[in-house]
């Protein structure tokens, strides 16, 4: 048995440090569902640095003044690959004027394509989209009497994810429905950057509770000033 096994220290100071080598024109995966579980600090840093010509893979495109919507406003995004983009008027304007390219993908297919990218599976078959315009130009095959559509993996130059807690070796734990696309995106970036609300030393997280093992994460930092904006604040008077 080795006497000394050191975990790899992946911590960087902050978002500015974490994104400093992202060039123009790359493909970025950005975690989150709506504004829930988005990497707020990294989005702000990309906005400030003015990285442009981005292809963004993200389930949604934020709202006009938050999330990926901020990068759309400044025209840093060349193409969006998403499943639902309905909450953003600036997005709509750019799409209709032809300034922005958009590829819409069924949500489960998007999740699985990202998962496949990280898991080394170049293609798979899914029933979603058979007989629709999503199937145009794609191979179909019949298995056990049902038709399926071949979909390719998705990978990114940089994946940016948000977790609740992480340790310095990149192990991550998510909270609530802020998990969503983050675990798969963490696996399919050539470089994966994780921002967390609480960064702890190695050994402080229970290995039984880790959602994303540190092998997938290359840089990690503790974010600050999380706004966690709510899109639909829905309240009841019911006592639970």
């Amino acid at each position, binding site marked *: 048995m080795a006497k000394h096994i050191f975990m790899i220290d992946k911590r960087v100071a902050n978002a500015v440090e974490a994104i400093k080598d992202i060039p123009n024109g790359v493909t970025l995966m950005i975690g989150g*569902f*709506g*504004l*829930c*579980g988005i990497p707020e600090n990294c989005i702000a840093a990309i906005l400030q640095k003015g990285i442009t010509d981005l292809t963004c893979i993200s*389930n949604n495109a934020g709202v006009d003044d938050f999330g990926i919507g901020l990068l759309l406003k400044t025209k840093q995004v060349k193409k969006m690959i*998403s*499943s*639902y*983009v*309905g*909450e953003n008027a600036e997005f*709509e304007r750019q*799409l*209709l004027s032809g300034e922005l390219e958009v590829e*819409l993908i*069924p*949500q*489960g*297919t*998007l*999740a*699985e394509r*990202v*998962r496949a990218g990280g898991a080394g599976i170049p293609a798979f078959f*899914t*029933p*979603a*989209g*058979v*007989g*629709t*315009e*999503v199937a145009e130009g794609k191979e179909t095959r019949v298995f056990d009497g049902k038709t399926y559509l071949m979909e390719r993996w998705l990978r990114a130059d940089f994946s940016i994810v948000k977790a*609740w807690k992480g340790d310095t070796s990149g192990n991550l734990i*998510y*909270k*609530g*429905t*802020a*998990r*969503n*696309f*983050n*675990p*798969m995106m963490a696996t399919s970036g050539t470089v994966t950057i994780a921002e967390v609300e609480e960064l702890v030393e190695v050994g402080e997280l229970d290995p039984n509770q880790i*959602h994303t093992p540190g092998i997938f994460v290359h840089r990690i930092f503790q974010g600050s000033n999380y706004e*966690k*904006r*709510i*899109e*639909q*604040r*829905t*309240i*009841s*008077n*019911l*006592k*639970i």
Partner: protein
Amino acid sequence: MLDKIGIAKRIAQEVRSGMYINLGIGIPTLVANYIPTSMNVVLQSENGLLGIGPFPTEDRVDPDLINAGKQTITMMPGSALFSSADSFGMIRGGKVNLTILGAMEVSENGDIANWKVPGKMVKGMGGAMDLVASAQNIIVAMQHCSKEGASKLLKKCSLPITGLNCVKKIVSDLAVLDVLPTGGFKLLERAPGVSVDQIKNATEGKLIIEGEIPEMNLG
């Protein structure tokens, strides 16, 4: 004729104890309010939760806990959280027993169109294509006709398709209908105050009427 709440109440009668259910945005979300408390069901949210609870009180709002419509929610005791890949794994894997969603058009062979109107802003299909391609049972909540009076229960959908041969049942403002595997809308119930002739006139696709058609009982 039924209003949105009437449609939700009637669909709630289709729910059975032990079901895992995915509710779409709009009228389908309202169905949760009318499921009898005696029934044990689990509501699935495709952004990664089994066990959706009521909307939170002001002091329990958690931005890290939302449903697929991005509304703040709570979790029932015994809930489980998971990734979007796991979520659509359980959807494609056929584990979700009942899917309730809205539609712009349904054809007599069960095709559904609900994600795109050409020429208008395209918002995306979200999880609808995955849900309709794999659900064990799909009930559609919809208006029988457009505001201009054109039927939305058609021989063939005119709008871009979301999925083929998948709708099993429709609850509209006028009627409850089964979509038969062999094709055709089989009329099961009339909405209160609606005649069979009204339903005939409002249905462009093949309508199958056998015997007396009872009026819905909304309890």
